[in-house]
């Protein structure tokens, strides 16, 4: 039993004894981290600050002579576990979308290149922020919540207008900077509705099941459209009203699990019996429409509804 949770130390121990438990997320991550070499890249920068160590990549805050303060991401796109290198497709898709977008709602991409040893390097706008998942308590008042949703719709409208669906909007993928205008990240599984191809990985059904619309959980490809992202917005909206509790959580509404409840259209509607929130019930219920036609047909209709509701919550 390895007790150390210090990543660097844990990696060294695991490798030394070659005792990875691949069912353990932490151990899997440790394997990958060990295999993502980064010293050769960060040695080009003064005072790199490690800001994130994820499953397949490592992120530093660095000062780039050309772009200023940026996020430097280094990852490994082909591993023994993924010999086909599916991850690069996901990354290239994200970069491709970000380069089409010039918006304050999405991080700017400055550079992307494949480098030696099956690695990639990304230079991206550095955003001083906290993920929404870590600051839900800041959104207490209905009008603050509505304004956040309005910002998110305004941001998403940019990709929707390009016929792209995010497909993985969740509090972890929404960064809240100090000015309160959110940044939407992780377009890795976003998909162009014009695209006729889809990766093998995606065909298995991408998305975070706790925030996925029913059609995404069923992976009913023909039904996935711009309205699919509205469902995630609906969950986030109600989750904020519930002070962080997921509206499909079995502890609130019964059922076996959150995905099971999503597929059963079983969510905590009673929140809107509370007079404080009742005026938001129509927006939430429409966003969480089980069928797409029960959601807002256009982003314009959704924004109009939010604006009308905001007038009720001055």
């Amino acid at each position, binding site marked *: 039993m390895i007790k150390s949770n210090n990543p660097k130390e844990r990696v060294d121990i695991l490798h030394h004894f070659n005792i990875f438990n691949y069912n353990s997320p932490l151990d899997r991550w440790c394997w990958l981290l060990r295999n993502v070499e980064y010293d050769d890249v960060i040695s080009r920068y003064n005072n790199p600050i490690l800001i994130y160590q994820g499953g397949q990549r490592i992120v530093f805050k660095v000062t780039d002579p050309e772009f200023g303060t940026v996020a430097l991401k280094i990852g490994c796109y082909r591993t023994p576990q993924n010999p086909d290198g599916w991850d690069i497709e996901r990354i290239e898709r994200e970069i491709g979308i970000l380069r089409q977008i010039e918006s304050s709602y999405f991080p700017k991409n400055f550079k992307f290149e494949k480098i030696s040893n099956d690695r990639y390097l990304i230079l991206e706008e550095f955003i001083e922020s906290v993920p929404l998942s870590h600051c839900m308590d800041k959104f207490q008042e209905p009008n603050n919540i509505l304004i956040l949703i309005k910002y998110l719709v305004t941001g998403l409208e940019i990709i929707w207008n390009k016929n792209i669906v995010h497909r993985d909007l969740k509090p972890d993928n929404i960064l809240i900077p100090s000015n309160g205008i959110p940044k939407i990240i992780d377009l890795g599984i976003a998909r162009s509705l014009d695209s006729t191809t889809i990766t093998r990985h995606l065909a298995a059904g991408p998305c975070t099941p706790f925030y996925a619309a029913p059609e995404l959980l069923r992976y009913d490809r*023909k*039904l996935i*459209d711009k*309205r699919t992202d509205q469902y995630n917005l609906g969950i986030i909206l109600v989750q904020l009203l519930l002070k962080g509790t997921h509206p499909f959580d079995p502890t609130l509404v019964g059922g076996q699990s959150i995905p099971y409840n999503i597929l059963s259209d079983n969510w905590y509607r009673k929140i809107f019996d509370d007079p404080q929130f009742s005026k938001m019930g129509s927006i939430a219920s429409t966003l969480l429409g089980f*069928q*797409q*036609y*029960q959601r807002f*047909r256009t982003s314009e*209709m959704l924004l109009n509804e939010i604006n009308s509701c905001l007038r009720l919550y001055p």
Partner: protein
Amino acid sequence: MTFEIYHQLGHRDVWSLQSIDEDQTGDGVIISPRSRSMPRVEKLGDSIKRKAIFDPQILNPKVVLKNMESYDFYPGCILPAGFDTDEYIVDSTLIAERCIDFQVRNNFRFLVIPTRFYQGMPPVDEFIENQNQQSITPFLSTVKKLGLKKEMILQLFLTGHMIKNKEYTDNLLNWITGIEGISGIYLVTELHPRQKQIRDAEFLLSLLNFTNSLYKNKMKTILGYLNSESLLLSIANPSILTIGSYGNVRIFHHSMFEISEKDLIQIPNLQIYVPTLIDWLDYPYIEIMKRKTFKSPIFFGDNKYLTKMLNPGYRGTAHNIEPHKHYYIEMSKQLRQIRTVENQNRYQEVCKIIESAKQGFSQLDEAGIDVGDKGAFLPHWLTAAKQFAEVQGWGV
């Protein structure tokens, strides 16, 4: 939401045009190529065409009836020697280009994208894929290529089997509400078998729900080929209700587009629309009713054509103009009355009309006037209205 009243043109379409002009019985017309050749459509005045909807009627690509031969966009005109499905797909762009050109040239109110009629209930994915491939994609691509800004309406033919199946309509609604660029649906339904008045509460309720779903999506809904059920359907907030589909020649059935209109025409008994019954009665009943307690002309719909028809010397057939023009006035009067109110108030008005008609039939029965099972449609209508109202939270 208020609605407009359109005449569904067909056999004797001149009578409708006259009625709108002389008696103000409608806001516009839906033009039928099956009944009016291309040169005759082009000759219509600009004021009519500007408000008119052109129904391309490409529901059965293999058949081209007489008047339709004068149009150049029918598959059978483009490929007179016949075609297979693959060829049809190739030529669907040509069909789209010609059909759009005709509609734009005549400056009709909307640009209607036609779709095909499918019998029964084909698998929904197949239905959608075929409609997209053969019609919607070529039409939308052509519109984009030409840079047209005209408001577009999608025509949809649905059978009773389709409309009554919730899973099927969910799929259809997901599909049509996701088509970018269209602002509404021109919906034509076929219920088979059916009587002149629809006696199927489930069908009517499903149609109300379907229409209301489109309304909630802020889409225009044009309900084509309606008899007096237009009164009931008004509670689901359609944009345009049609009048004029009351006889065998006029009630929609896909076979109408396989046989020439002339072959369908029989000479039925002279009938009169009785607004208080929301139904048509054979003329001989009228004579008896007049002698009994139903003396007031209001019962029969008092207008200038009734006066002519009640004249003892009047000997007419269904080919006479008066019963039709009488109907247009009375039907449009009823519709105009209920369009001034909305939602729950409209529902209550419609219920009153239906209840009143039920009473009317009871009175006929009590007076020894046996009209058979006429009036049997009313419980179906009331059931559909009440079930719909319950879901809307209007109370029953």
